[in-house]
Structure formats: structure tokens, C-alpha cells
């Protein structure tokens, strides 16, 4: 995934999470991720777009052109039903993963 050093699948999961409360356009999704990850995870902002399109192709997102708060023509992305399912499944999986990794890395003795 160009411009990203996320763990595989993390960006997809963050996008799905960003859309949990309703439709957002690409820039707003990026801003949400930046805010919640202290701008650590995303090196290239543009890397978001291939991921968005990929998720759309997998029918986890649907897209629609609309007008932004700033009165610009932008494309809004919405979670589909399967996107919502995917978010739930992947969050649980990532939680497990993070917990075991943290525990393992915090181990003091062999």
C-alpha cells in the first residue's frame, strides 16, 4: 500500500470506523484518521484514495457525489450492510491482535 506503513488492513479498518457514524467525503475521512491517530499512521494523505476505491469495489462502501459543508462538489462514502459487518468483525479481530501483541511485548522475563 503506497505511502503507508500501517499494519496490513489497518487503513481499511480505520476508514470503515470513520464512516461508522454516517457518510463522509474523502477529505473528511482522512482528517478523522489524522485526528484519532495523532497523524502518525498516514504519511501520504493520497494513499487513502486507492483504499477507498478498493473498499467500494468490494461493496463494503457505496459512493455518491454531493455538496460539502464548504460548498464544494465532493464524493461521499457510506458504509454498506456488508461494510458494517466487516467493521464489527475486523475490530474484534484487531482488538485480540493488539492485546496479545501488547502483552507479549510487555513481557519482562523469558
Amino acid at each position: 500500500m503506497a505511502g503507508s506503513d500501517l499494519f496490513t488492513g489497518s487503513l481499511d479498518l480505520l476508514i470503515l470506523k470513520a464512516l461508522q457514524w454516517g457518510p463522509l467525503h474523502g477529505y473528511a475521512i482522512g482528517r478523522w484518521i489524522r485526528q484519532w491517530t495523532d497523524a502518525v499512521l498516514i504519511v501520504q494523505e493520497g494513499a487513502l484514495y486507492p483504499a477507498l476505491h478498493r473498499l467500494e469495489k468490494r461493496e463494503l462502501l457505496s459512493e455518491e457525489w454531493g455538496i460539502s459543508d464548504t460548498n464544494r462538489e465532493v464524493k461521499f462514502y457510506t458504509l454498506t450492510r456488508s461494510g458494517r459487518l466487516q467493521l464489527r468483525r475486523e475490530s474484534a479481530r484487531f482488538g485480540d491482535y493488539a492485546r496479545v501483541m501488547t502483552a507479549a511485548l510487555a513481557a519482562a522475563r523469558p
Partner: protein
Amino acid sequence: MKRTFRFEPRLQDVEEDVRREIEAHLAERSREFEAQGMAPEAARQAAIAAFGDRGAIEAEVRAVHRQTVTARRRTLRWDELRQDVLTAVRGLVRSPLYTAVALLALAVGIGANTATFSVLRSVVMRPLPYPDSGELVQVWTDHRARGRAEPEWLSPPQYFAIRDQVPAFSAIAGYQGWGPSLTGEGDPEALAGAAVNADFLTVLQVPPALGRGFSAADDDANAAPVVILTDGLWRRRFGGDPGVLGRTIQLSGQGWQVIGVMPASFRPPEPWQILRPIRRPVTSRCNHGCIVLRAIARLAPGATIEQASQQTAAAIARLIPESPEDNSRVGSWLVPLQDQLVGPVRPALLALAGAVAFVLLIACVNLASLTTVRAAARTREFGVRAALGAGRGRIVRQLLTETVVLALMGGGLGIAAGVVGTRVLAALIPTQILEVQAIGVDAVAVMTMVGVTLLAGLLFGLLPALQGAQPNLMGVLRTANPDDGRRAGMVRRGLVVAELALALVLLVGAGLLLRTLVNLQRTDLGFQPGQLIITNVAYPSARFPEIATVSSNLEQVLEQLRRHPAIAAAEVDDVPPLAPGGDQDVTALPDGRIPPPGVEPGGIWYRSVSPGTPRLLGMRLVAGREFGPEDRAGAGLSVIITEEAARRLWPGEDPIGRFFTSGPDPDSQRATVIGVVADVRHDGPREPLKMQAFFSVAQMPTRGTSLLILPSGDPAAAISAIREIIRDNDPQMPLGAISSFSERLQAVTALPRQFALIVGAFATSAVVLALIGVYGMMAYAVGQRRREIGVRLALGAAPAAMLRWIVAEGMWLTAVGVGLGVLVAAATTRVLSASLHGVDPLDRTTFVVLPLVLGLAALLACWIPARRARNIDPVEALRAE
């Protein structure tokens, strides 16, 4: 995942989409930077920098779309293909006649080809079953300079000279036929075998599976007698018991030790069951009658057959000073073993291959022609479909699919037919070759045919498909075009002409073969075998040392046979007509005169017969007398010769009372001619005449002869009588196979008969296919012109004139097709010449009658649909539009 129906965005749209999306992103981002207090220009630059490599990201998005688009297209195409196949099958089911004819054409064409090429590859192209079999050659001597057309065997001195003086051969082995009788192991049995030089199995490079091969020591005249069994004989007579090694078995009254058993895979060049060493290294000078050895040699690595041939000729030439009369003007005649064995059937098989290729061609042309006609008839359907939005490519594809589906179905049927046909064709191959080369359906032949089928389907589907798919939309929809395009019509006519021409070529070929068959059956053989049955008896010298006892025993057996009620007559002939092998000619010097230098003395074939044999065999005495009691042992040697011998020994003179000798020696026995019989075609109707001399068995006793028996009624009763009498006479005497003379005669004409039958069947199918083609085209033409005919009739044209008008076109096409066929046939029937007998490849009768017959049949095929033109009701024809 639920399938939703959605429109796929095009790739250009995706690009535009992404560009706009990114622009919006950059605008939002710079606004945010500005809000943080940056100048607009700087904010813009910062937004771009934060975004990353824009080009790479756009490309990545495009790639995301492209992948899914291709995947989607693939499934779409698969769906369309399935749809096309279904439509094709439905369309084929809707026109059963077309489908049936097309399938038949393909099945016949492909079936015949699969069978023929399977046999061709098994017999002619597959190497013989010996390692590096390409190096094996049959070694003959060439006596053509001495007036003998046939290749000749070797004399022992020639064999030794070649063995020692030809470096181009790495090994050579001579052999002779050997027919021992096996006794003491159940029923006595006459075996077919060979006496071979010790190197024989080394030359073939096939060692025994059990025991050992022959050593040089075994080949000595004083060595202990040893034999090697073939796997078949070992299993049949010795129960496959390995303990047979070292055992001594009784062969013709002498003990022979078994030293080896050949592997089951071993195929001897002739159908031998047992091998022994020659044990007769004949180093002594041998006279002219001593040409007794056949030989197979293996070329040394890198040596060519030409080098071997030159060296062999030189080796023979070196024998001239020692024995000029045997070796001067004798050359070498080397034949690759493969050619030697399969040579006789090769021309017939190649001609057959040509014939079946023609059948396939006709089948394809027929398919193409029918498909074009069908496509033309469906122009309107395609016009409508095109109007409804079907792309041109889609229509072409649908037509193509139809043809390919048809071709595949036909191909399947054809290959099934080929499997059956291979067995039928295998009957054409002499058993002697089948013993060496097994025949099976050949995978390569089948694969080739599958390829040809697909190609034919594509090629011949494409032609009409392209025609069918370029409908002049408006024209088609407005009304049925009276003539759907001159070019399409030309193609259809061309195809019909081609079909007729090809069919005629096959028909002429079949006609020539049929005349050959008739000629063969009409040939006067000079004997009439009738109901005669025949079997061999042998008196080995080990058990009958005195030849006089042989004669008296034979006479006794004949008397017993004649007395039996089931037997009407019994005679003997040591080399009866149509008997294979065992034949050898002897020099005949008329009046004992030495021929002038440069003239080869004629060779005459000796037969030793009982006095009643010529009459029993139905030979016709044309001069002199038959054998009588005066021609007894001890009296002067009497001989009955054939007309051919009389003509060549005493041209223009009366041979009765004249004599010939077998050598210039004054002591040579004189054979006085007492009678002349009409020519006897000893080897069958196709073979050249031989000079033959019949001696009385009383004056020329023989140890091996054939009994000729005429049953008085049921042949089965006669056969059991023969068995009984022979067994009672001598339980050790093996009884050879009992066969009927008419079977032998059948066997001689079997090959030409099968060949004529098969080519006849091909020609018939070709003609039927061609006639269907003519019929289809004329029916179509009449259908297309309904309207035109209707108008003409309405304007007062006579119905008969309509008929003539339609038929005239058919006649013209027929004339062109048949004429073309005559030309092609005249150019190609030469390939058959090896298979013809008594008929010229350009036989006039055949070349006149058959084109007429085909022409008339084609006219009939035109006339039937044309009649419909006469019956067209003008009102209806016009209203139908």
C-alpha cells in the same frame, strides 16, 4: 453476495472521477492550512506535499478498477458463450435435416480418416519392434542384369563374403525356413520355424527372456542340436514352465535341447515359433541351385545403405574368379527391413489415405455449403437481430458457435466410427505384417482429427458467418432480397462444383478398383480348385532314412484315403498352387544345350505330383498325354510342362518328345516332355506366369508334400477321415493345418476385394454428400426465387419454362463440377496403378460411364427441387411477401 444489476463505469469516467475527488481533497486541505495562517500559495503547496505522489495514487486507483472490470468481463463473456451454445443447440434441433446431414458428413469424413491414419501410422510409419530398427536391412542379390526381375536370396559363399568384407554392416545373419514336426509332447504338430546363424538375435538386438542365445559353437555342423522357443510356443505346448530349459524335445524324430525362450514382446520378421542354428557353415563352393539363404544385416553406426550396397556388390564381385557362373552380373539389392515387411501394402494405404482425405474435404465442403445456404435463408433473422442491437461480432460468433458445436458433435461421432473402422481396415493388412506390427487406434491420428474438426468448424463456419453477418440492414428488412448478393451465390455454386468434382475423383478410383477385382476374378488360373481340401504331411529323414519307404508309405496312405467313403479322390502335389513358400526353381537347358554367353538359362519350377493330380486340379492338357503306369521309378524321367515353359524353351516348336536338363553335364538326367498343360497361375491371378514342370512322385519322390483331397460329400467327414487315416498310419506324423482351396483363393483376392469395397464405400458416401449439396443448393435457389418465379408466372410464363430455367443452372453447375472432376481424376489415378490389374489408370470406359452416371444423378438432384418451381402459385408467392 447478492448479485445486483449495475452499470459498470467506463475507465475514462473513473479517471475523471478520481481527478475531481483529488482536486476536492486538495482544496479542503489548503483551506485548512490557510486557516492555520498560511498564505494561499504556500497552503496549496503544503496540501500537495501532504497528499503524496499524485500520479502513483491515480494509477493505483485505476488499477483497482481495471482488475474488477476484466474480471467482470470474463464472467460476462462466459455467460454469452453459454447462451451462444444453447442458441446453437436449439437452432440445430429446429432443423433436424440439416443437422443430420451435417453430422453424417462429419462422422463419415472424420471416421474414415481416423481409421485410415491409425492403420497407416501403425503399419507404415511406426518403426519395427526392434531396437534401432532403422539400421536393419534385408540383404538380397540383384539378378536383374541376368534377366530376373525379382530380388534373389544369397548363396552361402556370397553370405560369407558379405559377412567378412562389408564394414558398413556391423552384423549380418542368414536364415532359412525350417518346418520341423514336434512329437512326444501330446499331439504331433508341424511347427513353423527358422534355421538361423548364431548372430541372428544379435542383429535384431533381442536377447532371449530365459536361458541363452545361440553361440558360435552352436552353429557348427558337429555341435549338439539346440533350439530357442518363442514365448507363444513355450506357453502353448510347455505350459510356460521354465523347467523346459535344458530339456530335450523331439523335432522331426531327432532330439533337440531347449536353451532359451524368447520374450513375449519378440516379433520375428516371419511368423516363426522356433529357432535353431543353421549348423551348416557351407564353405564349399556351391553351384547355381544353391541360393538358399536369406539375410538380415544391421548397418554400422554412421554407415549409409548406399555404402553398404557398394561394399556388398564389391564383395560379390570378388567371388567371380572363383565361380563366375554364380556371381558375374550379380549385384546387391538392399531393402530397409521396414520397407521389406510393409512395402507391399504401402501404395494401397497411401492411396486410401488420399481417398479419405477427399471424403473429409467433401464433408467439410458440404458442411460449408449447407451452412451458407442456411445462413442465407436466415438473412432476415440476422437483419432483425442486428436491428435489435446485436453487434456484428455477436452474430458472427453465434454462427461460428453453431458450426463449432456441430463440428464437435460430428467429431465425436467420427472418432467413434474411426474406432470401429480401424478394425475393418486392419483386415486389409496381410497377417504376416500384423504378426510384426499390432494395429490400434492411434492417439496422434485421433488428436489430428480433433484438430481438423475444430479447424473445419472454424473455417467453414467463418465463411458463411461473415456473409451472414453483413446484412444490408435496410434492404433485408424492407423485403427479402431476390438475390442475396452475387458473391454469396458464387461461393455456394463454387462449393457445389467442388463437391461434385471431388466425388467424381473418388468414384473413378473406386470404378478402377472394381474393374481390377472383376479382372482378377475372371483371370483363368489354369486350374479349378473346386471343393478340394489340402493338408501337409512330412517324412523326416531321421525316422524314414530310406526314400523308398517314404514312397511306399505315401502310396499306402493315398490308397487308404481313396478307399474311404467320405473321400472321392486323393492325390499329392509337393507345391500345390497358391501354396506359400517352399518353392525353388531349377535351371532348364532345352535339349541339354548350353545357352550362348550372356543369356541366362531359364529357371523352371519343379513339382512332384501323383499321376491323377493334374486332372484333379482341373488343369487342361493341351498336347501330349497324362502320366501313366509307364512313368514309374527306374524308367526314363517324364515331365508335363506348362504352355509358358513350352513357349520359352522351344519357341514355335512342338515340345512333345523333346527333353531338358538341369545342367550342361552330359550325365545330367534328361526330362522328356510327355505333355503340355494350359498355363497355371501358381501364385494367384495377379502374379506373373512361371515356367512349371510336373514330375511323377514315383520318379521324383519327396519327403514333404501336400495331400489334395476331394470330399465325396460333407467336407467335415472327409477331414475327420484324413485325421484318422494319418494317425493310424503313423502316430508320430504331425498333421498340418487343413484348409480348403477356395479359402486360399479367397485369401489371394481378399486384399483387392477389401480395397475395392472400402474405396467403393468412400466413393458412395462422397457421391451422396455431393448430391445432398446439389439438392440443398437448388432447393434454396428455388425458395429464394419464389417471388421472381411468381411474377414471371403471373406475367404469363409457362410453368415448364420455369422448370427449364432452374434446371439449366443446375445442369451448368453439374457440367462444370463433373468436368473438373474428370481432369483431377485423370491427373491423380496414377497413384492407384500399383493396386490395379488389367485396367489402365485412364481406362476409357470408367472415365466415360462414371461421369455420366454422376451427372445424371446430379441432374435428378436438381430436378426434384426445380419441380417445385413449376408448382408455385403466383398469387401465393406474391402475397407471402
